């Protein structure tokens, strides 16, 4: 059945060395009318420079308020195969690890009930199944959930938490990102599947300040691993780096943002004034055999980041400079619950927690969650002499 549409515009995007998404859609179109009409509609978009998808409608599976994004073509008569073309968000396993058996199982289900198109993965982290009809949703869900898969979050809900590879394959992980991600995902199942929040709430977890999941830029709660004590130095390996040609003075010491390192070229040893180190990870990332994070490990909790909609992008702000994180993470869960409760009680519809903190003031937020003021929370203290006093501040 392939070849229903001539696609000269999209065919251009099959040329060149980088793997082509058009080739993928064509592959799926050989088996699926849905994928074939997706191809036809996309070619039309390339000609007219506009999309033809309507706003999502409310579709889903019984008992869930999220996990499926309704998607309908605005040209259902021209492209009947994509009249409904809903997205199913499947909650990915922590760290995006799979066995081929598991992936094949999902592929078989998706070939049976969907377009055969996927995203590995969506921006939030879910394994995205792209395009199915309303009447197939329950079947897809039954097939997936009976095999141990569940849906991720969508709408005004807890969104699918995600994390970096962490301790599974990285020597820099200060926390067990994959375990924590799994634990929080399980803890918030109800909030994930039944949207009851003012807006979305995202949690992302990185094991160190390299922040491979971009937690600080796109999570309402960014959990970033760090340590408190001294960087572990292996002087033998320092010497080997020097002998292998690394210019330690120029590339490591001179690029240290706090200038807390001293390199002695005579005996090829490195010294670090750890109290002055801000744990940025530059030296460790460049000399991974010689330098390791300290042993007193935990995480920094930051809150509030989001994309520009609507009054501008935010990066997350430091709220708790250091917290030890060990299973079952009860302290952390309690704190997140408090954050969400304050937000839920105070936010307008579609107001993210970062925006609410700006509107109500950082003090209101910190007091609500029981975190004291600390210099680590600010880049600098306020400039102007206008500040509030609460009754409690007068009791000395």
């Amino acid at each position, binding site marked *: 059945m392939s070849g229903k549409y001539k696609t000269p515009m999209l065919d251009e995007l099959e040329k*060149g060395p980088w793997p082509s998404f058009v080739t993928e859609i064509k592959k799926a179109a050989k088996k699926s009318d849905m994928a074939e009409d997706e191809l036809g509609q996309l070619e039309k978009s390339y000609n007219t420079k506009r999309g033809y998808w309507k706003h999502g409608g409310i579709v889903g599976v019984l008992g869930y308020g999220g996990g499926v994004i309704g998607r309908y073509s605005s040209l259902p008569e021209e492209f009947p195969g994509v009249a409904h073309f809903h997205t199913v968000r499947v909650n990915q396993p922590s760290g995006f690890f799979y066995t081929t058996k598991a992936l094949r199982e999902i592929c078989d289900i998706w070939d049976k009930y969907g377009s055969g198109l996927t995203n590995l993965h969506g921006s939030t982290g879910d394994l995205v199944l792209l395009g199915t009809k309303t009447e197939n949703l329950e079947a897809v869900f039954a097939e997936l959930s009976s095999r141990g898969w569940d849906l991720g979050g969508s709408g005004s809900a807890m969104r699918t938490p995600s994390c970096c590879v962490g301790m599974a394959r*990285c020597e820099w992980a200060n926390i067990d990102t994959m375990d924590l991600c799994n634990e929080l995902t399980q803890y918030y199942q109800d909030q994930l599947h039944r949207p009851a929040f003012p807006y979305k709430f995202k949690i992302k977890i990185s094991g160190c300040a390299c922040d491979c999941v971009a937690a600080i830029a796109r999570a309402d709660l960014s959990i970033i691993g760090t340590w408190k004590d001294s960087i572990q130095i292996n002087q033998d390996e320092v010497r080997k780096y020097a002998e292998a040609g690394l210019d330690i003075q120029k590339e490591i010491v001179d690029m240290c943002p706090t200038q807390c390192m001293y390199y002695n070229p005579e005996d090829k040893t490195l010294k670090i004034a750890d109290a002055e180190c801000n744990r940025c*990870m530059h030296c460790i990332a460049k000399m991974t055999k010689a330098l390791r994070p300290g042993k007193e490990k935990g995480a920094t909790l930051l809150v509030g980041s989001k994309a520009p909609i609507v009054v501008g992008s935010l990066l997350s702000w430091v709220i708790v400079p250091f917290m030890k994180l060990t299973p079952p993470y009860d302290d952390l869960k309690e704190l997140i619950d408090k954050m969400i409760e304050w937000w839920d009680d105070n936010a307008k519809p579609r107001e993210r927690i970062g925006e609410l903190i700006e509107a109500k003031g950082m003090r209101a937020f910190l007091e609500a969650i029981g975190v004291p003021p600390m210099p680590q929370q600010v880049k600098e203290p306020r400039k102007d002499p206008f500040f509030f006093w609460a009754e409690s501040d007068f009791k000395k």
Partner: protein
Amino acid sequence: MALPERKTDIGPPHYEQFLPPVIKKNYGKWLYHEVLSPGTMKHVAESGDEIYTVRVASPRLLSTDSIRDICEIADKYCDGYLRFTTRNNIEFLVSDKSKLDPLVKELKEKNYTIGGIGPRVSNIVHTQGWVHCHSACTDASGLVKSIMDELYEYFTEKELPNKVRLAVACCVNMCGAVHCSDIAIVAVHRKPPVVDDENVPKLCEIPTTVASCPTAAIRPNPKTKSIIINEERCMYCGNCFTVCPPISIHNPEEDGVAIVVGGKVSNLRSDPKFSKLAIPFFYNDPPRWPKVVQAVKNILETYAKHARKHERVGEWVERIGWERFFSLTGIEFTFQHIDDFTFARDTFRTSAAFKF
């Protein structure tokens, strides 16, 4: 045919069942890693055990048949274990060193693109675009394909001063950390939306629609029971369209893309930063957006030529100053570059020390 019994709120499968035995054994006990080539690395555990990773590009949009092809390779060389990265690459996890070279050989024979590790361009994080989104004003996948065809060797081979993280967002909702990328493309509208007065009262909640506007450009219209937009205040964010579909922000003739640069999320050396506006507008020019591709390449190669080793794009620009960024890249500076929104006052220069 009867369906199996559905289960609810079980959450994702536990990750442990998907870990190769060598990872399970050495979990949390990795000692160091080495980048062996632009697409391969070796991790060594305290126990001396090793695991090899081969990173392969993916268009993110994958057909089930392609996933099965990938699975077949993972069965042959990786005992059936693989993973994906946060930037949508595929990682083959090789526990048996003797299988590494044969894997790489087969991947090359089958035209997979190996690379993206180390100081290079990694895969582009991107959004759905015209493929599947109602608010897209460009196609992310087409831009990504066009850019990566042009920058191919920066993924597979050529070194840069540091990593360069690219991103494409097909509207200002920015699903994916475009706002903190080294070089990123974001699609923008340039005209106020057109209001369908007949359908707004039927489909929209007026107070929510009014409240959705960040610049207070929307007020109710009691006569039509619809809304009126003060066009001078509109900055085309499209938030009203999101809450009220009959307010159409799409304008195929005047929509297009902007390029922003200098963002990062890592804390290495300098704080995470937002990307800033480099080029305010290009018309959508499918299927290959040649001017956008060339502009990205120009910024990348100007950075490659002038930055110091380990400097990210944003760190390089901060060292040389934005005025120098514009002169080195030859990019024209316009009124659009001067902020007049939320953070404007922090961006005006308050020093007499600058460059010509």
